[in-house]
C-alpha cells in the first residue's frame, strides 16, 4: 500500500444521495454488465460465430447447386425438411450455438454475484432485491436482442451474394421468413430470460451451466436418437415439449411435422416455462438469505 491516507477528509456535507428507483438500479446493472471482460467477450464471440455459421452454410448451399448428389441428400434429410430450407434458415443457423452462449452469459449474470460475494453488495444497495432481478432481466434480454439482431443483420449482408447464387435469397415479403428471423431474436431473448431464472434459482455457476447445457443441448440430442429408435408415443410427447425443441419451432420455415408443435405454440411452451421459472426466481430471491 503506497497510497497515502487521510483521516481529515471530512465527508462533504450535501453529498448527493437519492432514493433507489428502478431506473437507477437498471443503470447500475448495465454498468455491471459492460464492465466485465467476460460478458463483453462472450457477446462478441456469439455474434461472430453466428455470422460464421451463416457464411459456412451459405457456402455449402451454393456448392450444392453445382452438385446434384448433395442436393438430393439434403432433400431427403427429415431434420432439414422440418427446419425448411430457405435463406432465413441459412442466416439463423447459428442460433443452435448462440443459445448455449446466451444461456451461459445470462446464468453468469446472477451466479457470478453469488460466487464472488458481490450479491451482498448488490442487496445492501437494493434491499428489496426484486428491482435488481428485473433490472438484470432487462439488461440481458436487451443485450441479447441487440447482439442477435446485429449478428443476423451482418449475416444477411455477407451471405447475400452466395445465397443469390444458390437461389435461396432471403425473402422478406414471405411472412414465414420474417417470422423466423424475428423468431430467432425472440427465441434467444427468451432463452436468456429462462437462463437468468435458472441461474437465480441455482446460484452456483457450475450447477446452472450444467443444467442449461443438459436442457438445451444434451437432452434434445438424446431424444432425437430415442424418438427415431422407438415407436413409443411418450418419447414424441416429451421431445416436442423440451424447452429448446418447442421454442426453436419459431425459427423453422418448413411444414410442421406431426411430431412437433406449430411455431407459435412451440414458442408459447418455452415462454410459459420461462414465466414459471422467473416467478420461482423472484420468490426465491426474496426469501433466501444472501
Amino acid at each position, binding site marked *: 500500500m503506497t497510497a497515502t491516507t487521510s483521516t481529515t477528509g471530512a*465527508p462533504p456535507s450535501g453529498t448527493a444521495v437519492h432514493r433507489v428507483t428502478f431506473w437507477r438500479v437498471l443503470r447500475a446493472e448495465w454498468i455491471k454488465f459492460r464492465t466485465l471482460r467476460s460478458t463483453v467477450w462472450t457477446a462478441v464471440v456469439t455474434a461472430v460465430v453466428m455470422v460464421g455459421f451463416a457464411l459456412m452454410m451459405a457456402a455449402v448451399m451454393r456448392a450444392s447447386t453445382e452438385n446434384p448428389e448433395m442436393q438430393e441428400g439434403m432433400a431427403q434429410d427429415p431434420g432439414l425438411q422440418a427446419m425448411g430450407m430457405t435463406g432465413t434458415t441459412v442466416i439463423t443457423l447459428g442460433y443452435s450455438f448462440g443459445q448455449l452462449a446466451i444461456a451461459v452469459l445470462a446464468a453468469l449474470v446472477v451466479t457470478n454475484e453469488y460466487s464472488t460475494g458481490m450479491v451482498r453488495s448488490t442487496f445492501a444497495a437494493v434491499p428489496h432485491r426484486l428491482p435488481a432481478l428485473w433490472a438484470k432481466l432487462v439488461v440481458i434480454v436487451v443485450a441479447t436482442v441487440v447482439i442477435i439482431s446485429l449478428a443476423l443483420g451482418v449475416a444477411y449482408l455477407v451471405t447475400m451474394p452466395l445465397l443469390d447464387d444458390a437461389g435461396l435469397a432471403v425473402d422478406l415479403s414471405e411472412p414465414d421468413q420474417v417470422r423466423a428471423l424475428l423468431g430467432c431474436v425472440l427465441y434467444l431473448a427468451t432463452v436468456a430470460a429462462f437462463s437468468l431464472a435458472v441461474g437465480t434459482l441455482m446460484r452456483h455457476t457450475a450447477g446452472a451451466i450444467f443444467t442449461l447445457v443438459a436442457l438445451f443441448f444434451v437432452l434434445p440430442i438424446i431424444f432425437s436418437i430415442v424418438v427415431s429408435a422407438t415407436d413409443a408415443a411418450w418419447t414424441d410427447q416429451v421431445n416436442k415439449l423440451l424447452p429448446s425443441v418447442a421454442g426453436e419451432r419459431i425459427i423453422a420455415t418448413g411444414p410442421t411435422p406431426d411430431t412437433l408443435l406449430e411455431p407459435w405454440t412451440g414458442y408459447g411452451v418455452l415462454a410459459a416455462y420461462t414465466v414459471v421459472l422467473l416467478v420461482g426466481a423472484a420468490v426465491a430471491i426474496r426469501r433466501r438469505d444472501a
Partner: protein
Amino acid sequence: MIEARDLSKRYGDKLAVDDVSFTVRPGVVTGFLGPNGAGKSTTMRMIMGLDRPTAGTVTVNGRPYAQHRAPLAEVGALLEAKAVHPGRTARQHLQTLAATHGIPDTRVDEVIDLTGLTAVARKRVGGFSLGMGQRLGIAVALLGDPRTLILDEPVNGLDPEGVLWVRNLARYLAEQGRTVFLSSHLMSEVALTADHVIVIGKGRILADTPVQELLDGASRRRVRVRTPQGTDLTEALRREGAEVQVSDDGALDVAGLDAPRVGELAARAAVVLHELTPVSSTLEDAYMALTAESVEYHAEDVPAVPATTSQGAER
C-alpha cells in the same frame, strides 16, 4: 442508532444468534466483541437485511433496513472485504453501487481518495491484497455518507498504519454524531477504538457496558495466598472488605486488597503464609473469562508426541 429486539437466527439445528437485544447509540464507537463463530457477522447481516431473522426485529435509524428509501445514506457497511467481483476495478465497483442511489462520480472519487485507493482505483480488484480489499470495503461503506456505519472486522489484514487509520476514522465518524458499530474478535482492538462494548458468545449477549468499566474490572488486582490457616485468614481479609475465594488447588484468591496489605493483615492475625503472589489480570484475561464458556471452536490440546494420525485435522 441500531436497535435489536429479541433477535434470533437459526441455521438448521444450530442457533447462531439466541434472543439478542441491544441498542447501538449515535456519537460513540460501539465495539461488538466475541470469539469467532459467536454470531457477530450473522447479527450484522440481519441488521443489513441480508439474512432474515428467525425471530425478533432489528431497526436502523428507526426502520428495518429494507424500508429505507435510500439505504446507503442510512447505513454503510463493511460486511466482508471481498463482496466484490474480482474482474471489476475498484472504481467500477463503487460506480455500480453509486448508480443505484444516483450518487455522482465525484463522490466515488472522494471516497477513493479518502481511503487511500487513488493509485489502484483503476486496477482490477482480483489483484488486491487483503488490506486493499478492506479499504475498498470501507470506501463502499462511506459512499452514501451514511448516518450509521457497520464495520465487520475492519482491521483484518491491514498494516499497522492502516489499523491506526481505521481507529482514527471510526472515532472521527462517531465525533460527527454518527453511529459506529464495529466488530472484532480482539479485545485489545476494541479497547483502543471503542467507547462502549457489547460482548457476544455463542449467540448470547454476555456484556453490554462502557469499555472503561470492563477495563476497570480487568485491571483490578488480585492476590494469591497459600496458608494452612485458611479459615482464619479469610475471616480477617473479609473484615477488611476483600473478596476471597478458594481456588481448586486450595489457594485463596483475594480481590480488593493489594499484596502488602494482605501480608500485614496475615501478620496481625498471626497466620503463617506459604505463598503471597500478586496476580495482575489483563484485559485479555477478562475477555477470556467472559467468553471461556462460549467459545465455539476449542482447540484440541496439542499432543506432546507428533501425531501420526489425522486426529488434529478435524475442526
